[in-house]
């Protein structure tokens, strides 16, 4: 292999050292991905906004509101069909597919296609959101960069959520919610080892957003305050309305999507026009149904509420978004779910305020809670929804009503629609993503459930020959060595066989060079409460197939051993059956 000798160049030497240090690389790439994704998403937001302003100039004709989304969906429909098939839809199920099925691979073409098609689609007024596509673009950038840098499969996979959090932090201006969303929804594990990198990229992306666009929250909302404790009842009612509204939206979307999927494949490029035309016709009469509608949401949040208008918009947006998404347009449901929630909240708030004006806050406060409620019901990430609204308002007092309402909506949605929307969407495409609860269950299985009782430990004075003879009777590939009832470490069969080959039959175990490493204080081990996944990691790191299980109170107190097969069997994947083998 051709080489450039860096020995005379300290910079190259330093760079080479950097490349070989995984921790440093992870840190560096978190920063780079955060900044790069932040810049791309900011460009996406600005381009979409400007193009939309061009499409819909002030005082434009009503027919424009029909023609533009129809034409936009026709154009993007063809591009998606012909060139970018993986850029269709939201982007979040696709990202999860890449992470759990495709080893973190998202192609550059998909990234470009997603960016271009969503820009056109959203600018033309399609009633979908920009957050989901941003997530896929962010994850794609991370994936492309990691592969281009020659990182291994695991490293590529670990950078996908890093890109997701960076994208969401920039797209929604909520860095903490972005981290939580990446962990809660994308990874399904709030304790994922990539937490640090995810936080770093989210913060970097958010800083880029602020550098370019300034310190301007997505929504300017008045200070929230609870007027009277009786309001908790209304917030609970909002949770119920939000829960049922969420289920209605998800069911309608899934049913419509199934109907479109059953149409002839040749019509796939034309199907998005149904969404574009549908939303255009609605927009002809009610312009606020077009696009993501954040401007209207802000007006509602600031108390500019008319019951009939918000109730009608909630229904129209549910239909418009379901139709646009199901027909195959590019765009997400993250933003529309907030719009729907705000309208439902404002409607409930209007009713509450009409009957008990002295005891209830302005309908805008209910719209704010409603946003989180619908998000919790539709996307099913209750923690993210609470933190997201908290970040949007920067108001701590909102937390309790928000939690009440969100949890009720989450519960109703869970009862009536067991499968979360992103998993259901993937399911419709024939992809079975690992369910969050299954991933969490795997993470919860402890070593104690699969460990074996401790085998007889060798003394340090045991000869290699005796030890080899004793180990031949068992199925373990390593055995404990103890002195005075205290574990010193493990001796492997390989070490014993090597000693025998070298004529060391009469040697005692403490004479073995390899064993001397084993008696170090930090010999590889597990505790009974450790998870099986940690057991796998430790075995991989130490390159062994057996680990001792020791007490947390005394690391020299041997409680048992666990083998690679035991762990694999515990996880429900391939592993030699001990009983079968014995037979």
């Amino acid at each position: 292999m051709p080489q450039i000798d860096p020995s005379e160049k300290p910079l190259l030497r330093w760079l080479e050292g950097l490349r070989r240090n995984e921790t440093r690389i992870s840190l560096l790439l978190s920063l780079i991905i955060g900044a790069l994704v932040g810049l791309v998403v900011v460009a996406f937001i600005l381009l979409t906004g400007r193009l939309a302003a061009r499409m819909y100039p002030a005082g434009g004709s009503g027919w424009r509101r029909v023609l533009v989304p129809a034409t936009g969906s026709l154009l993007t429909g063809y591009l998606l069909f012909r060139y970018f098939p993986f850029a269709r839809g939201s982007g979040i199920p696709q990202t999860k597919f890449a992470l759990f099925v495709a080893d973190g691979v998202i192609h550059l073409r998909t990234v470009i296609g997603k960016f271009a098609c969503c820009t056109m689609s959203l600018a033309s007024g399609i009633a979908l959101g920009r957050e989901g596509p941003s997530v896929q673009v962010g994850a794609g950038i991370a994936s492309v960069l990691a592969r281009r840098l020659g990182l291994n499969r695991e490293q590529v996979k670990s950078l996908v959520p890093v890109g997701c959090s960076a994208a969401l932090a920039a797209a929604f201006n909520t860095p903490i919610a972005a981290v939580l969303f990446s962990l809660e929804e994308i990874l399904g594990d709030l304790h994922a080892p990539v937490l640090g990198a995810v936080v770093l990229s989210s913060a970097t992306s958010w800083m880029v957003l602020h550098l370019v666009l300034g310190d301007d929250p997505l929504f300017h909302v008045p200070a929230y305050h609870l007027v009277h404790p009786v309001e908790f009842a209304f917030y609970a009612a909002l949770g119920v309305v939000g829960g049922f509204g969420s289920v209605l939206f998800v069911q309608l979307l899934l049913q419509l999507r199934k109907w479109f999927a059953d149409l002839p494949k040749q019509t796939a490029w034309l199907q998005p026009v149904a969404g574009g035309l549908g939303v255009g016709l609605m927009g002809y009469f009610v312009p606020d149904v077009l696009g993501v509608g954040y401007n209207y949401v802000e007006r509602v949040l600031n108390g500019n509420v008319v019951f009939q208008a918000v109730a009608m918009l909630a229904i129209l947006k549910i239909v418009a978004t379901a139709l646009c998404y199901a027909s195959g347009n590019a765009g997400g449901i993250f933003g529309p779910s907030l719009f729907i929630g705000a309208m439902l909240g404002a409607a409930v708030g209007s009713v509450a305020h009409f009957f008990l004006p002295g005891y209830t806050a302005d309908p805008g406060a209910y719209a704010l809670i409603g946003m989180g409620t619908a998000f919790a019901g539709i996307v099913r990430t209750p923690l993210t929804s609470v933190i997201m609204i908290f970040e949007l308002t920067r108001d701590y007092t909102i937390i309790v009503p928000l939690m009440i309402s969100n949890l009720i909506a989450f519960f109703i949605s869970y009862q009536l629609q067991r499968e979360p929307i992103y998993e259901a969407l993937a399911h419709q495409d024939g992809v079975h993503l690992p369910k969050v609860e299954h991933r969490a269950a795997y993470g919860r299985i402890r070593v104690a459930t699969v460990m074996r009782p401790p085998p007889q430990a060798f003394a340090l004075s045991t000869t290699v020959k005796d030890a080899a003879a004793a180990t031949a009777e068992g199925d373990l590939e390593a055995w404990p060595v103890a002195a005075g009832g205290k574990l010193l470490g493990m001796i492997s069969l390989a070490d014993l066989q090597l000693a025998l080959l070298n004529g060391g039959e009469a040697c005692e175990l403490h004479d073995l060079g390899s064993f001397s490493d084993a008696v170090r204080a930090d010999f590889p081990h597990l505790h009974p409460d450790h998870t099986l996944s940690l057991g796998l990691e430790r075995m991989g790191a130490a390159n062994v197939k057996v680990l001792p299980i020791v007490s947390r109170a005394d690391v020299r107190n041997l409680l048992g051993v666990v083998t690679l097969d035991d762990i694999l069997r515990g996880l429900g994947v391939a592993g030699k059956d001990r009983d079968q083998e014995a037979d």
Partner: protein
Amino acid sequence: MSGLTISSARFFGTLVLTGVLMGVLFALDMFLANTVKTESRTEAELLFHEGQRLLQQGDAGHAIDRFREALTIARGERAYQLALADALLAANKTSEAAAETEQILTTDSTNSRANLLLARTLVRQGKVSQAISYYHRAIYGHWDSDAASQKLAVRWELVALLARQSANQELLSELLLLETEAGDKLEMRRRIAHLYLVAGFPERAAQMFRDLLRRNPVDADAYFGRAEAEFSRANYRSACSDFRNAAHLEPPDDDIRKRLNLCDEILTLDPSERRLSAEERSRRSLKLLELSLDSLTKCTAGSPSDALRSSIGRANQALKHSRRSLSPDAVESSLQLAEQLWQKRTKQCGQPAAVGDQALALVLKKAAQ
């Protein structure tokens, strides 16, 4: 030491390429952001001007929509926020207007326009004492341009409010400040002089009108003003003279004519006028008693209460017995009785509307002093 392999070169090459890409993206983002800002500013300005036009046409509802749209684009733009508050006030949405202006004041408590708007809103809500405080903040706060004339205008607005509220002490203090600012501005001094009358300080008003007449002896308004001042001080002869001068200078003015008639009526009734004979003084006092009795009788419509009947009886007795007496005591006694009857009449039927009764009331009031 390992060498720099092709994979390493590719690694660092990618990093460099990424850095370049980030630089390009940053430049693109900044360009787009600036374009967006410029376009948004223009769009917001258009909406703002449209809102102002609608507001001037009296369409506050649609003006509010335009201002809100402008604010959605250019968040925190002070001029738009103020315009929105103004429109909300014009649409009588006082609580929303108050919320909007209070929001501005939380970040800019010395903003005079916001303070003024909040003062107007509070007036509309009937919270006058709070409104006065915000008027003062508006006067002493910060104006973006033309501060002196703006402050003056606000002080005039405050003065008008105080006059409406009959808050005479506060009104007087504002007028004194305005007088200092007025300098040689005749029109302003004229307004102030009129307001001194409203505030119940006719001496000061008379002095200012006198000063105005010194500068312009054919100033009908100043004659009228001084006449009112003298009238308030119960110097009816001087008042009548000034009313006459004013009527001479402004013949078709109905107000002046009415006031002159009243003044003349008072002069024909007033027993305290100088250079009256004892007989005339007695005649006038009896006339006052007679008029008071007549007014009371009419007011009670022929069915007076027992207490009133007794007073009426005493008055009739007095009229019979005092006809031939010219002594000062008899005059005084008649006047006292007339006053008592008048007070009862006022208590029973309220203040009179007819010119004759008004004159009677004023003469008796002067006599009581």
